[in-house]
């Protein structure tokens, strides 16, 4: 377990190195990775060369030399890896679209020559077949033919022939099919799930290659129970119109949905072929498919028939009529597909039929809802108008569908109605849908309308309006929102402060600060701090400087209550001035009230790790009474945990260790534990503490935990870490010593990354 984690840590470190190395490193675990990476870069450079007679000749010679040397898959040799890399690079070089065809053909032929040599392993031949698959032409079909009878090479040869296609490849496949007598497609033990006969494989390839000349032969397999289905598939892939009858008959005779699905897929493939060559036949087939008792076949037929209609507007109108037919009403899959197809047809003309459908009162309610949702996603003017109307529909489900799906344009159009439903609907989901739709408008007019509604709304409505204005970032309505930040109702005040956080800027600063200083409610003060922090983020540097100075002045002049209110804010803001003020006027000031000193320390601890060293410097001078020093030490623990680097962890710990007796045992343990979470930086920060009698024990324990396998952190540099660990060893108790010693003694410990 420890060794495994050691290796894992090593690999993680390696991965980090690899990611940052910037070099073409190939594979982190392969011992050949550096070599192959270099070869890969060399090949990439070489492959940029423009083709010349001489260079082409060189590459062809390489094929002749390297091809016969190919080893079987699984040899694992570096040389073979390089060989394959080079050959596939050569293939791709000749595969470039700007390569003159004669040279490409020569390369493919050369692969063919090598393939024809009888002394290669099946996997080597498969590799060569793959090169031919990528750049081969009709000239290579003869050599591929020779591989079709061998079960160990037939698969690879078929794949190549499928890609090459054309009459020569088809003839080879046909001849092979005629010859095959039920031999197994793959050697025993290597592919048990393969088709039972090579004939099926060849049939599949004939279809994939589009071999029209094989149609007569394929039709002959109609009575063969094993080969009927692949033959049917091939005929459909080729586009033979007679295959339609075969498919429809198989569809009705199919015993289960898997078989029906397979036939439907074949029918769809056939119809797509016919669409190009014989559109009338395609239309006829599409209609027949729609009479099937099998739902997906009807759906496919409907899509096909729609696809034959060229005009988008007419197609959309056809879809709208089709969805109203009885079989569609009973088939939600048909609905979904027809609506999706309609949604894809752009333009006002295409939307008209659907907008009319939505308007008609006798359209079934469910269909109206689905149509509303579909139109809501469109952007044309007809759809926008229809959806805006739908947002005020009497049917709440239609309203909801429209609101949930509508885009910004429709939402602007429906603004008044949306606002009405957002405020008045009894149904919370509808209100939410309406508010969400309003948020898509970004319309200042709607924001203003919402703001005007604040005064005459009830509490629930007002809270939702404030939430909307905030989420919408309606900066122009900040004044209206600010009226509520000190509302007697706490929920209202919080909603208003949250909104100001989202839309406020410098103009709202003083108002919110006033609330922070004057409102006695703790939740309101906390929210005010959040709001001021949010506003701070949008202030420019000049305003930030001005506000920092103002806050520091106020803090210095405030009474205890005011200063306590300001303390959380001063720590929170990203301002050296306010944080220094907090440190000096808050934590360190001898005459400051204890509560303020504690609050100041807490604020720094939560927010300002960069103040850690400065706070540590003062630790000895802080009183223990009242918990001031304790609060400061708690703050330091938080800072180190949050960001050891920004907290200058090593320096901070050094300062604390130097203040002899200033840090109690509990805080010492917490501080060194915080260092323990900081990886190598933490380890190095703990090392000097081993020489400090007060700190040595705790530091040693944490060091041991860090270096032992089960607590190993990524990035620990082995040699240095072990050196520190050896230093800590004598300071541990017996049990811990033994555990650490075991880790130090384990094989691989001390290995450099």
């Amino acid at each position, binding site marked *: 377990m420890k060794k495994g984690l050691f290796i894992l840590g090593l690999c993680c470190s390696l991965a980090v190195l690899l990611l940052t190395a910037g070099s073409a490193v190939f594979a982190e675990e392969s011992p050949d990775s550096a070599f192959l990476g270099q070869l890969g870069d060399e090949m990439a450079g070489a492959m940029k060369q423009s083709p010349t007679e001489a260079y082409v000749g060189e590459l062809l010679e390489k094929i002749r030399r390297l091809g016969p040397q190919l080893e079987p898959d699984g040899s694992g040799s570096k040389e073979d890896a390089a060989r394959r890399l080079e050959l596939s690079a050569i293939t*791709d070089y000749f595969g470039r679209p700007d390569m003159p065809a004669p040279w490409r053909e020569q390369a493919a032929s050369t692969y063919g020559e090598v393939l024809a040599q009888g002394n290669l392993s099946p996997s080597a031949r498969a590799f060569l077949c793959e090169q031919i*698959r990528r750049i081969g032409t009709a000239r290579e079909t003869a050599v591929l033919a020779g591989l079709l009878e061998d079960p160990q090479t037939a698969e690879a040869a078929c794949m190549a022939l499928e890609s090459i296609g054309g009459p020569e490849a088809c003839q080879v496949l046909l001849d092979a099919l005629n010859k095959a007598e039920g031999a197994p497609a793959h050697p025993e033990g290597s592919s048990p799930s393969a088709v039972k006969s090579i004939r099926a494989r060849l049939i599949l390839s004939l279809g994939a290659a589009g071999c029209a000349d094989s149609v007569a032969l394929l039709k002959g397999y109609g009575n063969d129970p094993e080969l009927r289905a692949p033959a049917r598939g091939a005929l459909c892939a080729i586009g033979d119109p007679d295959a339609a009858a075969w498919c429809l008959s198989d569809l009705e005779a199919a015993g289960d*949905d898997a078989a029906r699905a397979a036939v439907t897929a074949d029918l769809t493939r056939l119809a797509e072929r016919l669409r190009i060559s014989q559109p009338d036949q395609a239309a006829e087939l599409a209609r027949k498919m729609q009479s099937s008792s099998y739902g997906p076949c009807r759906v496919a037929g409907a899509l096909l028939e729609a696809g034959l209609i060229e005009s988008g507007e007419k197609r959309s109108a056809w879809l709208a009529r089709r969805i109203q037919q009885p079989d569609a009403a009973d088939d939600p899959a048909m609905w979904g597909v027809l609506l999706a197809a309609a949604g894809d047809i752009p333009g006002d003309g295409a939307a008209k039929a659907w907008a009319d459908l939505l308007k008609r009162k006798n359209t079934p309610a469910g269909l109206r809802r689905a149509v509303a949702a579909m139109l809501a996603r469109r952007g044309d003017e007809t759809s926008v108008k229809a959806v805006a109307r739908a947002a005020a529909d009497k049917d709440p489900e239609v309203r909801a569908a429209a609101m*949930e799906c509508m885009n910004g344009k429709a939402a602007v159009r429906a603004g008044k109605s949306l606002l009405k439903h957002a405020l008045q609907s009894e149904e919370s989901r509808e209100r939410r849908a309406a508010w969400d739709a309003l948020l898509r408008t970004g319309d200042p007019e709607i924001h203003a309308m919402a703001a005007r509604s604040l005064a005459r709304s009830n509490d629930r409505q007002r809270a939702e309006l404030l939430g909307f204005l905030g989420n919408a970032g309606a900066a122009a309505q900040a004044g209206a929102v600010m009226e509520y930040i000190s509302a007697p109702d706490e929920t209202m005040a919080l909603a208003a402060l949250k909104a100001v956080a989202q839309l406020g800027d410098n103009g709202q600063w003083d108002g919110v600060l006033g609330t922070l200083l004057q409102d006695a409610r703790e939740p309101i003060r906390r929210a005010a701090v959040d709001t001021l922090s949010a506003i701070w983020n949008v202030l420019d540097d000049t305003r930030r400087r001005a506000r920092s100075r103002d806050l520091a002045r106020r803090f210095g002049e405030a009474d205890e209550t005011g200063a306590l209110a300001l303390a959380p804010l001063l720590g929170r803001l990203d301002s050296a001035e306010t944080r220094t003020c907090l440190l000096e006027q808050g934590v360190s000031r001898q005459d400051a009230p204890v509560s303020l000193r504690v609050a100041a320390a807490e604020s720094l601890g939560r927010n300002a790790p960069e103040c850690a060293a400065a706070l540590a410097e003062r630790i000895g001078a802080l009183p223990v009474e009242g918990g001031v020093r304790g609060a400061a030490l708690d703050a330091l623990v938080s800072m180190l945990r949050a960001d050891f680097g920004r907290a200058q962890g090593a320096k901070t710990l050094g300062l604390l260790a130097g203040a002899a007796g200033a840090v109690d045992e509990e805080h010492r343990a917490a501080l060194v534990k915080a260092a323990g979470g900081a990886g190598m930086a933490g380890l190095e920060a703990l090392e000097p503490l081993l020489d400090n009698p007060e700190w040595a024990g705790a530091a040693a324990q944490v060091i041991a935990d860090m270096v032992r396998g089960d607590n190993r952190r990524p990035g620990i540099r082995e040699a240095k870490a072990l050196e520190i660990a050896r230093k800590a060893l004598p300071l541990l108790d017996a049990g811990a010593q033994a555990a650490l010693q075991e880790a130090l003694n384990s094989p691989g410990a001390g290995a450099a990354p």
Partner: protein
Amino acid sequence: MSNGRIGERLRSRREFLRTVAAASAFTIVPRHALGGPGYTAPSEEITRAVVGVGGMGRGHLGYAGARTVAVCDVDAQHLQQALDSLPAGTRGCRDFREVLAMPDVDVVHIATPPHWHGLIAIAAAEAGKDIWCEKPMTRTIGEGIRLMEAVRRHGRIFRLNTWFRFKDNFYGYGSTVEPIKQIVDSGVLGWPLRVVVGQGTGFDFKFYWSGRTDLTEQPVPPELDYDFWLGPAPYKPYHPHRVHQTFRGYWDYDGGGLGDMGQHYLDPVQYLLNKDATSPVEVEVDAPRQHPDAAGTWRKIILRYADGCEIWLDGEGFSNGMPYIKGPEGELYRNLELYVKGKRVHLRGLPKPAPQETDFYQCVRTRRPFALNERNGFRSCTLVNLGITAVRLGRSLRFDPETLTFPGDEEANRMIWQPMRSPWRV
């Protein structure tokens, strides 16, 4: 697979869905209408099966909103570990087709290696199941096309297992995607835009998912059906580095770190740039030559759209200090730091983006397409597959987003539809 049982279940499920679709655009049929107060009618509950429970799939077992009734894995040990963590009565099998034949499974979660995603998703759609699929959606562009067709033809709800376009902090960027979208849609950055995805902008391409070239044949462990694990991939002798996590390093099954993480990083970019219905027209690459079997590293990939928008993928660290998004008028850095014409700006009052359906199991009930479905998922997966194709071929490519081909580039086109080992076919 029993025809009677499937037919009956499909009819009752269909009846339920018809009722749901008719009754509600956004709510399910109320409990009291189905079985009285306090009674959870079985048809309300969505059931799922998870295919592939060795790594990522274990996480799928606990996704809220549905009940796991079956698990499937070609590794008997993984299967048993999953079953041990689930209530008694959960079914286990080693062939995904058995899962698809279970009439009481509504949704199939696919958490196998990517070379299986297309096949299983298509079969699941054809079996009437809704689908929750791990990324990358498919290993090749061709499989993606077939998957889209099948999902559409069978009216299924499909979701991809990446979500950053609608929720969660966007890796190391420093915020969620929504405010970035608001800024882009506001137009302050101008157009076209360049997006940089790399270490400097908060994204790590995990090059430790590289393959090894020194694999020697090892005996197949008895618990693993290696032939089935390979499935449509070419037969290569077994080595543990080919399977279970490290499969990511092999082109036959995945695409290295780009394949593993690419769709997480690039799907939100596609969304930000409003490119859900299209693809780049050019891909440029700077990489060492790749081994034909083992995925390696690359230095830079540029995906360029017809309107001039670009996505730069940084594999070597050049993105440090660069803006995440740069336009002619402004730049957006990590943590939403926005500069317009050189000045730091805080934008307020921006409209929220168009709504997205983000509750998959609710989409199963309402039949509305999920936010990241088979169509926009295909497009963001195509970004990944274009990058992988360019890296593997070692050169730049031109692509047609309408025909989904590489014009005049036969070799690249032969990467779109890659043959499968029989009997597997899409």
